[in-house]
C-alpha cells in the first residue's frame, strides 16, 4: 500500500501598514506591552472601527500578484468567540464576501519546473492580542499591541502532495509579498504564519481522507518536519485499521511530534454575521487598473526574463528571484558588470557563502553591487585572475569600496606583459635543466602533468601575478623547442 499526502494551506500574512486595520495605533513589532493600543484596541464601550484603506490596497496588490479575481464588493463579518486576547469577543474578518477570490499562483520548483497552486480566496482580518503567561507570576497578562494588526489569510485548494511542494509554495509566497512590499514575511516574528491541512489517501484514490490541521509552525524546517511526522502518525493509525479524528494539532519540535490542540467536534460555532459598523468595500475597475499599473515586476516575470534575456539557467533564475532584495542586488550588479552570468555566479556563489558564514541577509551585505560589478569587469578585462578576484572580494567584504584601489594596495595586478613573463620563464628553464630534459623526453600526456610544476614555480616567482594563460602558452613554446 502506498499512501499519498493531500495538503491545503492557510497562510496568515501580516500586512505592512504603519497603523492597525481599524485604528490609528502603530503596528511595529516588539514594543512594550500595551503601549500600542488605544480605546478601540482595548474594545472600550462605544468605540467604532474605521477601515485603514492601506490594508485594502495591499490586499488588492496581493490579489493581482497571484493572478486572482478581486471582489468588486467585499464585506467584513464578525467571527464570535470568547478569548482573553480577543478584546471585543469577536474578530472582524471576511467570511461571506472576501476581497480576493479565486486565482492560480505559479510556484517554481527546484528542478526549474512550475507547480500551479489554486488559491481559493484571501481575506482581510484583524489579528488578536497575546496572552503572556510568564510576566506576572501566577497570572496571565494580556498584551494588546498586536490586536488589530492587519492580516491577509490566503487559502489554497488541497493541491499539495509533497512537503517540497509546500515549502516551494511558501518560499514563492514569501518572495511575492516581499517583492510587492506588502509584508515583511518574517516567520519568526509571526508576520507569516502557516497552517497545514493534511490527510492521507491510498494512491489512486480520488476521495479525500479525514484531515488534521497543523497550526502556526514558524519555520520552513519545522513545517517540513511537522508534515513528515504527522503523515507518519496518520499512516500508523490508518494501517492499524483505525480512523483519523478531525482536529487541530500543534507541532512540538522538541519532541518531534504533533499533539492534539482541540477537537473540531467541540469547536466553536463562530456565528459569523455582517459587521454593521463597517460599510462594504467597493472597488471599481479603475482603482484595480491603477494598482496594477503601479505593481513592480513580479517574480514569475523576472524568472522568465533572466532565463530568456540574460541567458541564465532556470535554476539560477529561480534562486535569484526568491526575494526582491537579492534580485535587485543582482540586477544592479549586472548593470555595473555588464556580465549577467558572472554576476549570477558571484551572487549565488562567493557572495551567498560570505553572507551565510556571517548569518547576514542580503540587505546586510558588506559588498555593494557596484563594487562586485567592477570586480567582474576587472576579471573580464584580464586584470585579475579568478584566484586574485577572490582576494579582492575579501577586500571588498572587509570594507574596501574601490576595487582598483584594493588591487593596487595588495599588489595584485596580473602580469600579462609577455616580456616580463619571458624573463621568468627563461630563468626557470635555465635553473631546472633536469626537469626540462625530463619534459622533453616524455610523451604529450605526461608533459601535461609536468608542466604544472613549471607553472607553479613561475607563479611563485611572479608572486602569483602572472596571467596563467599567457604563462602556459610561453612555457609550452619554450619547453617544446630547445
Amino acid at each position, binding site marked *: 500500500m502506498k499512501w499519498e499526502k493531500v495538503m491545503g494551506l492557510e497562510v496568515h500574512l501580516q500586512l505592512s501598514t504603519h497603523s492597525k486595520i481599524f485604528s490609528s495605533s502603530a503596528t511595529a513589532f516588539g514594543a512594550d506591552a500595551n503601549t500600542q493600543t488605544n480605546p478601540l484596541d482595548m474594545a472600550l464601550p*462605544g468605540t467604532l472601527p474605521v477601515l485603514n484603506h492601506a490594508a485594502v490596497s495591499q490586499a488588492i496588490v496581493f490579489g493581482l500578484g497571484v493572478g486572482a479575481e478581486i471582489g468588486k464588493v467585499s464585506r467584513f463579518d464578525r467571527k464570535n468567540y*470568547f478569548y*482573553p486576547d480577543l478584546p471585543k469577543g469577536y474578530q472582524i474578518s471576511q467570511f461571506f464576501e472576501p476581497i480576493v477570490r479565486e486565482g492560480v499562483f505559479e510556484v517554481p520548483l527546484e528542478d526549474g519546473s512550475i507547480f500551479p497552486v489554486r488559491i481559493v480566496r484571501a481575506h482581510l482580518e484583524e489579528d488578536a492580542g497575546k496572552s503572556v503567561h510568564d510576566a506576572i507570576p501566577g497570572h496571565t497578562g494580556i498584551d494588546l499591541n498586536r490586536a488589530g494588526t492587519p492580516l491577509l489569510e490566503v487559502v489554497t485548494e488541497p493541491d499539495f502532495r509533497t512537503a517540497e511542494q509546500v515549502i516551494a509554495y511558501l518560499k514563492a509566497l514569501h518572495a511575492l509579498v516581499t517583492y510587492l512590499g506588502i509584508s515583511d514575511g518574517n516567520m519568526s516574528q509571526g508576520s507569516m504564519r502557516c497552517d497545514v491541512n493534511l490527510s492521507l489517501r491510498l494512491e489512486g484514490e480520488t476521495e479525500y481522507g479525514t484531515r488534521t490541521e497543523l497550526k502556526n509552525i514558524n519555520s520552513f524546517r519545522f513545517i517540513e518536519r511537522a508534515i513528515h511526522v504527522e503523515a507518519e502518525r496518520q499512516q500508523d493509525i490508518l494501517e492499524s485499521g483505525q480512523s483519523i479524528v478531525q482536529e487541530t494539532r500543534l507541532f512540538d519540535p522538541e519532541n518531534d511530534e504533533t499533539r492534539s490542540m482541540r477537537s473540531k467536534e467541540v469547536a466553536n460555532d463562530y456565528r459569523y454575521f455582517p459587521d454593521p459598523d463597517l460599510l462594504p468595500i467597493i472597488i471599481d475597475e479603475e482603482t484595480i487598473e491603477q494598482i496594477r499599473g503601479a505593481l513592480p515586476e513580479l517574480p514569475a516575470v523576472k524568472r522568465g526574463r533572466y532565463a530568456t534575456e540574460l541567458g541564465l539557467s532556470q535554476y539560477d533564475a529561480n534562486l535569484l528571484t526568491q526575494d526582491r532584495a537579492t534580485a535587485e542586488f543582482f540586477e544592479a550588479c549586472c548593470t555595473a558588470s555588464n556580465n549577467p552570468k558572472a554576476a549570477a555566479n558571484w551572487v549565488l556563489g562567493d557572495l551567498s557563502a560570505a553572507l551565510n558564514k556571517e548569518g547576514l541577509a542580503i540587505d546586510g551585505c558588506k559588498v555593494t553591487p557596484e563594487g562586485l560589478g567592477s570586480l567582474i569587469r576587472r576579471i573580464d578585462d584580464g586584470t585579475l585572475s579568478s584566484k586574485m578576484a577572490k582576494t579582492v572580494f575579501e577586500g571588498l567584504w572587509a570594507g574596501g569600496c574601490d576595487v582598483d584601489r584594493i588591487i593596487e594596495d595588495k599588489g595584485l595586478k596580473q602580469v600579462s606583459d609577455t616580456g616580463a613573463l619571458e624573463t621568468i620563464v627563461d630563468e626557470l628553464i635555465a635553473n631546472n635543466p633536469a626537469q626540462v630534459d625530463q619534459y622533453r623526453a616524455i610523451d604529450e600526456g605526461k608533459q601535461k602533468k609536468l608542466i604544472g610544476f613549471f607553472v607553479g614555480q613561475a607563479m611563485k616567482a611572479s608572486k602569483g601575478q602572472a596571467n596563467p594563460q599567457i604563462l602556459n602558452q610561453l612555457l609550452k613554446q619554450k619547453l617544446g623547442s630547445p
Partner: protein
Amino acid sequence: MAGPEPFETISSLARQLDDRRVSSRELVEDSIARIERLNPVLNAVISLDKLGAIAAADQADKARAHGAVSPLLGVPMLHKDIFCTRGVRTSCASKMLEDFVPPYDATVVRKLHDAGMISLGKCNMDEFAMGSSNETSFFGAVKNPWDVNRVPGGSSGGSAAAVAAGLASLATGTDTGGSIRQPAALCGITGLKPSYGRVSRYGMIAFASSMDQAGPMARTAEDCALVLNAMAGHDPLDSTCADIAVPDYSAGLEQSIQGLRIGIPKEFFSSHLKNGVAARVNAAIKELESAGAVIVDISLPSTDLGISTYYVIAPAEASANLSRYDGVRYGYRCDSPSDLQDLYLRSRTEGFGEEVKRRILIGTFTLSAASYDQYFMKAQQVRRLIAEEYQSVLKDVDVIAGPSAPNTAFVLNDNSKSITDMYMEDVFTIGANLAGLPAISVPAGFVDGLPVGMQLIGPRFSEAQLLNIAHQFQRRTDWHSLTPNLEGLTR
C-alpha cells in the same frame, strides 16, 4: 430679579442669557437644586456632575461676556447614560459598567460641549437601552412625572422624565426601536430620532449597531432643531455616519405646510391601539389638515412583521456588541474566579440584568449555524421588504403620521404585562429604525391625564421637513407647553 421658570425652552433660555437677564451659573444652580429636590422620587438622573457643570457654566458666562454668541451657549442639559463622557461615570444603567469612567467623550457629547451646552450629568435608562419602560435599569425604575406610579417609557426614560419634569430643557436620547419616541410620547415631550447615519454613533455604547441613532429630547420641535444643528454631521470616527451637508434645521420651521401630503397607514390604527390614543392622534391629524396638509390613506402591510424582524436582528447584533463585557479588561468582574470559564460565566451572569441576558441568548441562538438561515437571514430579507415598503409609500406622500406608541404610560411593575406585550410597545416606531428613516414624536393631547404622542416619519435625511411640520403643529396647539404638577413631589 425672578429666575427663569423650570419649564423654559432652550430658545427662551438663550434669549434670557443673551439679554443678561440670567447667567448660565444661575441656570445650572437652579437645575441642580431642582434635580436634588425631585430626583429622589423620579430617579431620572443617575450621575450628577455638579462641579463640572458649575465650572463649565462659569466658563460659558465668561465667554458670553467676551462676546461669544451661540444659540446653545450656557444652556444646561443632560445626557443619556449611554453616551461616554470623559471623566464622568458612564454605566449604561448596568451593574456591568457601574464603575466605568471613559477616557473619551462620545462625538455627540463633544459636539454639544463645543456648542456651549453645559452637561449636568447622566440620565437613567433601560439597561444597555434594552427595554420600553425603564424598568430594566440596574439603578431602579424611573417614575413618570405625570403619574409617579407609572413608567416613563424607555429606553430613554430618564431623559424623557427629566425634560418633562423641567430638570433640564434638553436631554439626549438614543433610539434603536423607539427609545426616543415612545418615552417622549409617554412623558409629553418632543423627541426626534434622526435618519440612520445623521448623527455619529462614536462613543455611544452600542446596542444594535445597524439601528442605533442619537437624537434630541426637548420641549419643542424648535428646540430639537437647534440641538440637531449641533449634533448632526459627518464623523470620521464612525464609518456609518453619512458624509452629507447638514442644513440649518431652524431655518425652515416657519414654512407653511399647505399642500403637504401626509399619509396615514391604516395598520397604525389597528387593534393594538388603545381607543383614547387613536382619538387624540386623529384629532392631531385633523389639526395638520386644517393647517393645509392633504391627508392620504396609505397602507404599510408589513407593519406587524416589524416586531419579530427587529427582535431577531437587534438581539443578534447585541449578542456580539456585548461580548466585550467579559470581566477581563474593565467593568464588572466576579469574585475569585476559579478559571477562565468561571470568570466569563459568573461575570456575565452577575453583571447583566435579566432582559439583557435574554436578548444575548436570543441573538446567540439566531446567529448559530443551525438557525442563521431560518432566523437571521430571513429577518434581513423582511427588513429589506419593510424598508422598500416605506420607500415606496414615501414616494406618494411627504410624511407618514400616526401614533408614537399604542398606549399611554402604564403602571410600574405591571406583572400582567408579558415580555411580548412589552415588545409590542415598539410596534409603530420600529419601522423607521429598520428602514433608517427619521421620525419625531410630538405631544398630541392627553388620555386620562396621561400624554399621547403623534409620530411623523419622513424620507431619509428629511429631518428639516419633519421639524417644520412638528413646529407648525406646535404653533397651533399647546399640548407641548402643558406641564405636570410636581408640587409636593419631594420625598
